[in-house]
């Protein structure tokens, strides 16, 4: 006679777990590159290796600025073969970048917008947050979308802009640093060739062969925490909110994440025992039983993908090595809690794009490119610290850590103070940059505010930043004399002066309390300098022509010669 346990197993074994057909992803053709068979290596100003989110964002950012680049990728499609989506949450700063690059509308139409998150312990909600509360942006706090759609939209946009030499099925086999550039050997289905680059950007991801070949230590460490993703479609109506369980009753008291993305696909991520057999826990019948436990007996579902994973982290000491720049996962990898991986790669690209553009156009010195490392390395370090703390809350390492977490969760149910200690991921936010030679005051991101010209036409900060590569000087109520003197002095600098209120003869935006308070400025005559990546780089209380020119030169690492 079967025991109750084996009966349960029998019943589950008999359930059929359906799989949805695989996503149909676009494929782009391989075109033999012109350098095949040439004897002397051709020199390109900018070569980007890797067409993932960060490499594509950089190529698109450069093209938007009118700058050519060569983009090499070993594959001919988007996403990762045999896998589902990796990243799914795109944060406001990334969405603002996509708005500036012209693909935000497609992302918003396809993706799932959300701002509300809830955290549960057992059956009880212990904490919730609404990220919309602190937002003044035209873009929402988050949109969830399968990563390959974002990559797809970026490729379409890059091809539409027509300035990037996108080379599919081109695999870099060797790089060599030269005194004034980099030499690359590239393998294609039609043979191998060699090219040179003034500057090489490595966007090849976590296992970067370029980083390995150059012998750069990534200081990597691997977690023993194990998770299993189930991407799944079902008919149970649930709110489009981020739900996390510290200890879910339907997952043997371990963590669970639940998120909706495009095409009605839910990503449900289950924390597994450290020593689990990854092949076993990702079997459809085992994953299906977990899901059945969570959804209840009557909900129909179909799998889109099941995948076990462990996470790791690494961080390069420097993101610039001579003429080679590391962006995205090639430079830093963090645990997935808080969506700080893909988003920081996209923001690396936006940080580097305008700097490369100004240097390539001869408008400033190479020194500006050092600021990429000075700004993004500390940002990655901060992301690593934040995500490591979340990971440790979610996977306590000792009985004492379990005891402390039990105390936090117990108190959080009754006392607001303890809710701040519940850490199921601190969501990706645009990192502030510390004070540095080019940023004496440090810098912080400016959200994509809605603005209005004095004649009533609407605009946004991203629209103002979407053409060319200029800083914007937002000048509060300057006088005509001040404005004229500044225009005369600033003619050769990449700066666009805009007035906010007043009667100066400059293009003028309506005075706006939200803008002034978001910029922490607004006194008549004061000026805020916004960089092309929408970072507030300086605030001048008394904006004389000399003070403005000096601030712009500092931010751009430009001297009197250039421009």
């Amino acid at each position, binding site marked *: 006679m079967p025991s109750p346990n084996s009966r349960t197993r029998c019943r589950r074994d008999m359930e059929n777990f359906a799989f949805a057909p695989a996503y149909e992803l676009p494929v782009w053709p391989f075109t033999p590159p012109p350098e095949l068979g040439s004897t002397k290596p051709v020199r390109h100003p900018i070569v980007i290796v890797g067409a993932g989110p960060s490499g594509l964002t950089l190529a698109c950012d450069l093209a938007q600025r009118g700058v050519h680049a060569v983009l090499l990728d070993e594959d001919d499609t988007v996403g990762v073969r045999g896998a589902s989506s990796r990243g799914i949450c795109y944060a406001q700063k990334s969405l603002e970048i996509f708005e500036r690059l012209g693909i935000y509308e497609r992302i918003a139409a396809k993706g799932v917008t959300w701002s509300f998150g809830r955290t549960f312990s057992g059956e009880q909600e212990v904490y919730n947050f609404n990220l919309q509360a602190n937002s003044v942006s035209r873009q929402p706090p988050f949109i969830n979308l399968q990563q390959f759609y974002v990559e797809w939209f970026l490729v379409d946009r890059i091809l539409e802009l027509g300035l990037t030499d996108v080379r599919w099925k081109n695999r870099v086999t060797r790089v060599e640093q030269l005194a004034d550039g980099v030499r690359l050997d590239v393998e294609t289905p039609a043979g191998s060739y060699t090219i040179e680059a003034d500057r090489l950007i490595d966007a090849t991801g976590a296992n970067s062969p370029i980083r390995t070949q150059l012998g750069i230590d990534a200081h990597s460490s691997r977690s023993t925490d194990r998770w299993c993703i189930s991407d799944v479609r079902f008919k149970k109506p649930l709110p489009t909110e981020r739900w996390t369980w510290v200890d879910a009753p339907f997952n043997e008291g371990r963590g669970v994440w639940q998120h909706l993305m495009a095409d009605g696909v839910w990503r449900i991520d289950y924390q597994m025992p450290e020593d689990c057999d990854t092949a076993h826990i990702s079997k459809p019948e085992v994953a299906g039983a977990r899901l059945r436990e969570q959804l209840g007996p009557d909900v129909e579902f179909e799998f889109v993908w099941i995948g076990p994973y462990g996470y790791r982290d690494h961080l390069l000491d420097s993101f610039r090595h001579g003429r080679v720049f590391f962006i995205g996962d090639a430079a830093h990898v963090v645990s997935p809690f808080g969506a700080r991986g893909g988003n920081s790669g996209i923001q690396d690209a936006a940080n580097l794009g305008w700097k490369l553009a100004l240097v390539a156009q001869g408008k400033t010195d190479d020194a500006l490119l050092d600021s990429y490392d000075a700004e993004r390395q500390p940002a990655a370090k901060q992301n690593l610290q934040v995500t490591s703390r979340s990971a440790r809350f979610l996977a306590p390492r000792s009985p*004492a850590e379990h*005891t*402390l977490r*039990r*105390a*936090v969760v*117990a*108190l959080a149910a009754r*006392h607001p*103070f*303890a809710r701040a*200690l519940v850490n199921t991921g601190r969501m990706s936010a645009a990192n502030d940059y510390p004070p540095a030679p080019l940023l004496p005051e440090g810098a912080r991101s400016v959200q994509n505010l809605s603005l209005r010209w004095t004649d009533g036409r609407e605009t946004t900060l991203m629209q103002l930043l979407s053409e060319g590569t200029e800083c914007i000087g937002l000048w509060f109520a300057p006088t005509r004399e001040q404005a004229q003197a500044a225009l005369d002095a600033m003619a050769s600098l990449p700066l666009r002066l805009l007035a906010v209120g007043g009667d100066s003869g400059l293009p003028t935006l309506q005075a706006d309390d939200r803008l002034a308070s978001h910029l922490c400025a607004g006194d008549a005559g004061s000026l805020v300098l916004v960089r092309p990546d929408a970072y507030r780089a300086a605030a001048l209380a008394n904006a004389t022509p000399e003070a403005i020119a000096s601030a712009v030169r500092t931010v751009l690492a430009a001297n009197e010669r250039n421009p």
Partner: protein
Amino acid sequence: MITEPRIPDPDGFYAALLAAHEGRTEAQSADLNARLVLQLANQCGDQDVLLACIRAAAEEDTTTTKDSP
């Protein structure tokens, strides 16, 4: 970190602390202590003082461990 006495009735406080632990298993006592630490930390609310207290308590532990037979 304040090290001068500030508890108005030290014996009364200590008795109440012991009473709270009475009848509890070791694990239940550990849970109670953890909740208590977090509540007291929020009463203090001063990051520097909290970190100083954590350091001082951790040092105390190494000292006593070393001295114990």
